[in-house]
């Protein structure tokens, strides 16, 4: 990728717990016990990257409900944010939750948990200059490697960016209606160990309803709902765990294993969430209620195909002045425009 001579710094002013650097994941080392990590919501991560002109799997900042506040140093940065409906402010002025913007040196972007969603992605046009560990920048905080020294981002961190050559974006909303996903039914493929459960327990599993518990993180989402009982005990000889596997330990409470899961485990896995529905569950907050719906492999692959086609069409951005917004919102945006215009280096 061609880059201009100048580098810029993205400086973290404050960060809640759980803001990490994530690329598309660290693949190829599962056989040694290394899980991929990578984004909790792959579709949102790809959307932010594509909106700013990066490859879909480029390294971006994953922001949790803990939020983040940051500024550019040295040179302006083109930034896209997409994911859950987070609350964004640029130098105090509100922005829509999915947005493409030019962050001038010294300008402050605040990202806070908003109306819904648990994760959003902040992509920067260019490349984060951090060490590649086992072929990836993905952060796995539990084992302490990848990203920035294997840890979550914190106030004072200065991330060097090799900027890509791209036109300075005008402040625009990212048109990504696919990120507005109701939770309702989450599709699963039954197995690999659904034969550890009698038919009535499979039915109870599918009927739910399930509530996302307070115990949720990058490793696992614990669910509350009807307790499930095992037909053949709950200890199995350990085998592999795919992302989205739903294991049922002895207490009958299902656990959905996510991006930072362990690579192997010894509880029966009643079902596996299909790839395209993982991000949707990841975005759910504690208290959210939903059901599971069993689908065939064919249906799951079709959903993947649709998702891939969606991104292949490219990301549409709409300059904010031309979108339908409330007068209060437009007033805020006019002020932003003034600020950017006054400080803009072009």
């Amino acid at each position, binding site marked *: 990728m061609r880059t201009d001579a100048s580098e810029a710094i993205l400086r973290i002013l404050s960060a809640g717990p759980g803001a990490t650097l994530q690329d598309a994941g660290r693949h190829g080392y599962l056989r040694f016990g290394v899980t991929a990590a990578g984004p909790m919501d792959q579709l949102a991560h790809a959307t932010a990257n594509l909106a700013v002109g990066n490859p879909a799997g480029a390294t971006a900042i994953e922001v949790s409900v803990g939020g983040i506040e940051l500024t550019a140093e040295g040179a302006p940065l083109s930034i896209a944010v997409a994911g859950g409906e987070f609350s964004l402010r640029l130098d105090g002025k509100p922005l829509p939750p999915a947005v493409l913007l030019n962050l001038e040196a010294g300008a402050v972007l605040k990202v806070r948990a908003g109306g819904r969603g648990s994760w959003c992605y902040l992509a920067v046009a260019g490349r984060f200059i951090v060490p590649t560990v086992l072929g990836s920048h993905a952060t796995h905080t539990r084992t302490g490697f990848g990203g920035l020294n294997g840890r979550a981002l914190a106030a004072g961190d200065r991330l060097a960016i090799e900027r890509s050559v791209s036109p300075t974006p005008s402040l625009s909303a990212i048109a990504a209606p696919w990120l507005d996903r109701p939770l309702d039914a989450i599709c699963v493929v039954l197995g690999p160990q659904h034969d550890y459960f009698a038919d009535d327990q499979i039915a109870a599993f599918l009927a739910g309803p399930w509530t996302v518990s307070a115990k949720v993180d990058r490793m696992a989402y614990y669910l509350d709902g009807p307790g499930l009982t095992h037909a053949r005990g709950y200890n199995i000889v350990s085998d592999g765990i795919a992302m989205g596997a739903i294991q049922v330990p002895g207490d009958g409470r299902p656990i959905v294993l996510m991006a930072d899961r*362990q690579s192997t485990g010894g509880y029966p896995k009643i079902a596996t969430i299909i790839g395209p529905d993982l991000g949707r569950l990841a975005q759910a907050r504690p208290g959210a209620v939903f059901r599971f719906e069993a689908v065939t*492999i064919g249906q799951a692959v079709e959903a993947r195909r649709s998702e891939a086609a969606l991104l292949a069409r490219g990301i549409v951005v709409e300059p904010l002045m031309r979108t339908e917004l409330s007068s209060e919102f437009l007033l805020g945006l006019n002020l932003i425009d003034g600020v950017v215009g006054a400080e803009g280096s072009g």
Partner: protein
Amino acid sequence: MTLQFDPRFLDAGEAALVVEFGDTVDPVINDRVLALDAALRADPPTGAREFVPTYRSLMIHYDPLGIDRETLVAIVRRMMTGLTEWRGEGTTWTLPCCYDPALAEDLDEAAKILGLTRDDAVALHTKATYRVYMCGFTPGQIYLGDVPEQLKISRRATPRPPHPAGAVSIGGGLGTVVPFVMPTGWYVIGQTPERLFAAERQDAFLIQAGDLVRFEPIDLSTFRDLAQRAASGEIVARKRAA
């Protein structure tokens, strides 16, 4: 001889296929897993992404937009008809292990449960050669079978507090070495100064499924010396190819 394989094909979602040869810890079953793993790695089907051998099954991660399930199953079936007995890649590792009470936090407790003296437990542990059935749970962690009968101990009812990196443990009739600080339901009977996972080292991982492992007792001062050398990137375990 050609092996008679009749595995089950289980789906772990639309992007992972489990080829299950059994549901027990058994060297014959593990041989089959490793034989198929070796064959697939030598000639990976287009669209297959990762192969994860475990005690008793091989998980194949694949791109379902690159290969469909039926094609993958057909390729695996065809591969298995030609497989012969797995002979292993033959690497034997000798891991230095310190059984000093300062590091072997649960050795006395485990010995008492097993009805052994501390010295007998250590002698049994160092006499045996263990098969690495699989790597997993955490990066570089190894699971060991062929634990002597007298050292077979159940797992704890509730986990103990976190142990240090390099803990050498027994539990559930098996052994493990864990390169991370972690709570465990197993009994920590020693500690190795070797780093089974070191992201910055050229060989980030040392041991793989199918390798053999022995433990060599070392005293506390040797442990400290070797730990320092391991920290600087040196490999302090001894490796012997077949």
